[in-house]
Structure formats: structure tokens, C-alpha cells
């Protein structure tokens, strides 16, 4: 059942168009993550769903009802802000009860609902404290509690973990994942620029870039089958290596000759007309391995070695415009700076994009 539906939605500030023709169906019970670099419009899109920004064009439906002009409070949504946005002069209890008090709910009901939310979020000892007496993580839990109390159809999270320190971010991320599990019926939309949050929390990820949806899909689908070079390089860390190449053989499998490198066979189909065109050859740093054989993808001198213990990241000298690349090898490696290394990768781990950046898989 569709919970949130965006049809051809756009947003512009005067002549500046920040979102174009967004089409998206979000099912009930999904946790959809909007991810993208700064300024891609992901927060704007979320705020449009919340009703905090007007919708310039298109339709927004929540539970089948047109919501374009409905004020935020009547949309059946609750929002958790990046900056918590707690009411600083109210206790935790009053913060969570504020919405219900405005709605003039009976006191007993308010107490029960707030008590329940506090129990879920382990905030019971802090109910009578002011926000300033709480830690960052506790404040964000209060903000989440305020959302739970509203019992919304859709939860909206706007970068809720950005203000927390690294350790707390991991802990709160897990809490949100557990919260989602305990509320399988609730739809959640979560905005972040952090791909780890996106990959770990999402049932589906929406990758936004420059006001357009680049790809929608399950986290691993995006990782394994990126639709274009942007998604390919945005998902995964370090980013996917992208090398210029020439297409040399077409068919169910495609043969390419990498510029300044070796030849490779990529397991994607291509058509006869593609023969001889310039393409972009992609391979993830973690899919590369060192080889001694003659059958290598590229050869280069190690410029920088980053030994992290669990992995070793090698940066290679740039040769040509697009030729700098990165390799992530497991464990501790004995390779030194300046060493000449040959690299290869399994054929099914290779990606191929046409000159405009579209994956051959999605043409």
C-alpha cells in the first residue's frame, strides 16, 4: 500500500529550480533514505513532504490524499530536525506533550502516551529535566520521542545524527534501526548525506543529485548495479575508480581496452553499434587485487599508503587526466610507497558506463 506518493513534484525559488520532476512511491512500512551531496535538494524535498516548504508543481499524496496545500499538522507526519529543535523552556515531558496539549487531548491520555514514548526511548529518568541538562544523544531522543507521541503516518528525519559525535552517532543509528523494527507499520523518510547511515538503515535509497533523482533502489542494488557514474562514485568508500576506455568487442559480454592500461571483459551486454566508442570503465577499490600475471587491468606506482590495520588503501600516481585511482586491500600489506604494482579484478565486479555516464545495465 502506498503511503507517500510524489508525482512530478518540482520546486523552484524564483527562477532557480532546485527540484525537477520528482516521481516517487513510498510504501507503508518502508524506511526510505534520501541521500546526496550538499545542495542536492534532499532536505527541501523532505520539507515539502512535511509542509514546511510550498510545492511549486506536481502532486504530493499521503495515504492517497492530496496534501499539497494541507498545513503540516494535518498531514499526519512528525519531523525530527537535525538541530533537535526542542523547546528550551519546557521540560522533556512538556516537550513531548506539546502537540497533544495543543490538540487538547485529555490529561490521562497524554500521560500514557508520553510515558510510553519515554519508556521506548529510555527517557523516563529525564522527564522533568530541561533540554539544557541533557546530552546531545538524549536531546535527539527527546526529539524522536516527540515524533513518536504524535503517532504519525510518516516519520520524517532530517539528518538527525549530524550533530552527534561519532560514537554517539553509531549508537543512535542502531537505536533508530531498532525503533523502526518495533514499529513495522510506520513509514519513515530519512535524509542524510552520510552513506553509511543510508546503507545501514534504508529499505530503499533515493540518490539525489542537483535536483534530480539519480537512482532508487535497495542499498546493495545501488552498490552492485549503480545506474550511472554519479551513483557509482557516491555509494561506496573510497569512491569507485573511473577510467577512460575504448569499447573493443560487443555482445552479451563486452570487451574494452583501458586507456594507459590493460584489456578487460565486462559482463554487461552491448550492441554492435557501440563498437569503438569511448566509454568509462569502473571498478571499486575493494574489488581490485594485486597480480603478478600478464593479465592485468592497470599498472602503476604507489604514491601513498594508508595502513588502517583492517584494510590498506593504496593511492596510485595519476597518469593522464582521469587515471588516478585507489585500491583497498584487506589486512596489512607489505607494499611500500613507490612500488610498481599490477592490479586486476574479477570480471563480474566490473562496471561500464557510456560517454554520458549511464550504466550499460540500464540503457
Amino acid at each position, binding site marked *: 500500500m502506498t503511503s507517500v506518493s510524489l508525482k512530478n513534484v518540482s520546486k523552484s525559488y524564483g527562477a532557480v529550480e532546485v527540484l525537477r520532476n520528482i516521481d516517487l512511491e513510498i510504501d507503508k512500512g518502508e524506511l526510505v533514505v534520501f541521500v546526496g551531496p550538499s545542495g542536492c535538494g534532499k532536505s527541501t524535498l523532505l520539507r515539502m513532504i512535511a509542509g514546511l516548504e510550498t510545492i511549486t508543481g506536481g502532486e504530493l499524496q499521503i495515504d492517497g490524499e492530496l496534501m499539497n496545500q494541507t498545513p503540516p*499538522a494535518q498531514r499526519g507526519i512528525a519531523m525530527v530536525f537535525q*538541530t533537535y529543535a526542542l523547546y*528550551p*523552556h519546557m521540560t522533556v515531558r512538556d516537550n513531548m506533550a506539546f502537540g497533544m496539549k495543543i490538540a487538547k487531548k485529555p490529561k490521562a491520555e497524554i500521560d500514557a502516551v508520553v510515558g510510553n514514548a519515554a519508556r521506548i526511548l529510555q527517557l523516563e529518568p529525564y522527564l522533568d529535566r530541561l533540554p539544557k541538562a541533557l546530552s546531545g544523544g538524549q536531546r535527539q531522543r527527546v526529539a524522536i520521542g516527540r515524533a513518536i507521541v504524535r503517532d504519525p503516518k510518516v516519520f520524517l528525519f532530517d539528518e538527525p545524527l549530524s550533530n552527534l559525535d561519532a560514537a554517539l552517532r553509531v549508537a543512535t543509528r542502531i537505536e533508530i534501526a531498532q525503533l523502526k523494527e518495533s514499529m513495522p507499520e510506520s513509514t519513515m523518510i530519512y535524509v542524510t548525506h552520510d552513506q553509511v547511515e543510508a546503507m545501514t538503515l534504508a529499505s530503499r535509497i533515493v540518490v539525489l543529485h542537483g535536483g534530480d533523482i539519480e537512482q532508487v533502489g535497495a542499498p546493495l542494488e545501488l552498490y552492485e548495479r549503480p545506474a550511472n557514474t554519479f551513483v557509482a562514485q557516491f555509494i561506496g568508500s573510497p569512491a569507485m575508480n573511473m577510467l577512460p576506455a575504448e569499447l573493443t568487442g560487443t555482445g552479451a559480454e563486452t570487451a574494452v581496452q583501458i586507456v594507459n592500461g590493460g584489456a578487460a571483459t565486462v559482463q554487461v551486454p552491448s550492441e554492435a553499434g557501440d563498437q569503438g566508442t569511448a566509454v568509462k570503465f569502473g571498478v571499486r577499490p575493494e574489488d581490485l587485487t594485486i597480480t603478478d600475471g600478464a593479465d592485468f587491468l592497470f599498472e602503476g606506482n604507489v604514491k601513498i599508503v594508508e595502513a588502517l590495520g583492517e584494510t590498506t588503501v593504496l593511492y596510485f600516481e595519476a597518469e593522464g587526466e582521469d587515471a588516478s585511482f585507489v585500491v583497498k586491500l584487506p589486512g596489512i600489506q607489505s607494499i611500500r610507497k613507490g612500488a610498481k604494482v599490477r592490479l586486476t579484478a574479477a570480471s563480474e565486479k566490473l562496471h561500464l558506463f557510456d560517454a554520458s555516464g549511464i550504466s550499460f545495465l540500464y540503457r
Partner: protein
Amino acid sequence: MDGIAGRRPLLIWAVHLSVAALVLLWTIPTFGLLVSSFRDGDQLSVSGWWTALTPTERNIVYRAPAAEAQVEQAGQWVISGNVFEGQAAGEITKFGFSSKAPTAFDAGQSAELTKGRTLSVMANGDYRIASSEEMKGKRGARIFFTSIDPPRFTLENYRNVMFSEGIGRSFINTLTVTIPATIIPILIAAFAAYALAWMKFPGRSLLLAVVVGLLVVPLQMSLIPLLRLYTDVGIGKSYVGVWLAHTGFGLPLAIYLLRNYIKGLPKEIIESAKVDGASDFDIFRKIVLPLSFPALASFAIFQFLWVWNDLLIATVFLGNNEEQLVMTARLRELLGSRGGNWEILTASAFVSIAVPLLVFFSLQRYLVRGLLAGSVK
């Protein structure tokens, strides 16, 4: 390094010294006013407040009674008495009988007058004019003397001011003007400031520009037109008129100050309240108002002081009768009709300072930082 390390303390010293200078500049006259208000009127008129603790030297003329006050004592006709009769006694150092030489004799000496008469004045003010034959004449002799008065402090000035000079009534009148003239603009301005900061409506920025523009309009320009308008609509010279006037003149600054403060509140708090279902009025009342206390308090102090100290608007829009004469106008009258009575002036000035100080110190606790702590980050 030395340069940087050396300059900073210097700067701090400069700051401290200027603060000290400013504090002195403000407190010394105030202190002088305070001291003066407790001094005896006669002493105040001849010496500065900084001499309040030292004796005062005064040159006084006393006219002795005419000849009919003489009594015959041991073959001499004598007029005697005390030069301080009816006033506070001092200690006499010099005396004389002519305006050409008012300090010719030391106290206790005997001075030879004309026609064989002698005059002696004791240090305590007792004088004695003696003559071997009966004295004649309708005018008594003049005695010039220099008196050293001990410092005298009194509460009499305050008693006079508060109970007999009509200041008490003016005090009430001023309060009648000031309290509504402070509260009304704050009420209006807070609503307006919220609307201008957070509500979307066409012409909002234009309206704000007009408000800012009104800040620079001199109020003197509108006094006469306003008064004519009041007369036309029948308000005339009344408290309602002066409240409205102060409200009007205070509003631009109030709206501007409050709007800037309210606009500075975190946007997310307002949005969060909107998502929680709060109407604009709810947001204003339950979120914005409690968080705007520092701005409200500082404007309240501004407006209160300005209205309390105002003379111009009160003179124009209020009558000159007992029921409508405010403190400042009363002080001006005291100064005008009895320019010499500094002790009244200083005491009443102090009475009029007391209330603003009280207001400042009681509202000052709302001028706190960190009201938003814990809300966002």
C-alpha cells in the same frame, strides 16, 4: 610574541580604566545629588556638596530691635539678645557694625559705636548694645557677623517634597502615565514583531521598511497635528491621549528591536511547533513569548525610562493642573518659581530617580543569556 603578549594587558587596562572613568562620571554627580538632598537648605545655597562634612562659613546681617527694646541696667541703657534668634546657631568668629567693615572685630571684643555706644557679640551669638544715655531711633542697629556653622543633615527636605510640595501627587500622575505607556506598546509590538518575523503575508518586507523608516521621524514634528487630532476627536488633554502618544512614539523602536530578536530564534523551533499542530497564536504565546523575555525586558526598561523622564510629551498632551502635572513638570516648576530652593530640587530629583532604578534592578534578572540553551545544539 612579546608584542602580542604585551599589548593585550594594555588593552585590558585601557578597557578597565575607561569603565572606571565612566562609572565615576555617572556616580559622582549622582552621589552629589544624594548628599545635597540631605543637607540643610541654608548651607546648600552657600557651599558645595563636597564640603558637606566641614563647617560652613556664612556672612549674615542681623538687625537689632529698635530703641524701644532697651532696658535700663545699672545706669546703662542696654539692648541685648541673640543674633541667631529663629535660626540654627553657629559659632561667630568676626563681627562688625558697618557694611564697609563687616569683619572688623573678633567675637568677644567690644566695638565702639557712635554716640558713646558699645557693641559686643559673643561667639555663641549673644550681643549687647550698651549706651550711657537713653537710645533713640525707630530703626535698630545692623550687626554684621561671620558665623561658622557645623554641618547639618536633615530628612526635612524629603518630608517637604513628599508631603507638602505636591510631588507625591505628581509621582502618582507620572506612574499613571508611565505604566500603561510601557505595557501597551510592548503588547502591540510583540504581536507585530512575531508577525513580521515569522508569518508570511504580502507586503511584509515593505511594512518592515516602513517601521524602520518611522524610527527616524522626529516626534516633535507630530506634536501639534496630534494635539489637533485629539481635540477634534474629543480626547483633548487627557491620560488616554498621552498613553496613545507614547505608544505611537515607542512602537517603531519596539517592533524593530523585538522583530530582530524574534527573527533570531531558531527556525526549527517554530517549524517544529507548526508540525506539532500549534497555530501562530499558540506559537507566539507558548514558544516565542517565553523565549523573548530578555528582549521584552530590555525594551520595557528603555520605554519606562524614556516615559518616566519625558517632559515634552507630557507638557503637550497633559494639562497643567494638580491632577495631571507629572513629576518632571513639577520639578521644572520648583526650579522655575523657587530657583533658590536647591534642597527641594535635589530631594525631588532623587525621589524621581528611585523608581527607574527599582525598575532596572528588578527587570535586570531577565536580561540573561543562555535562554536558548539545549534547544539546538
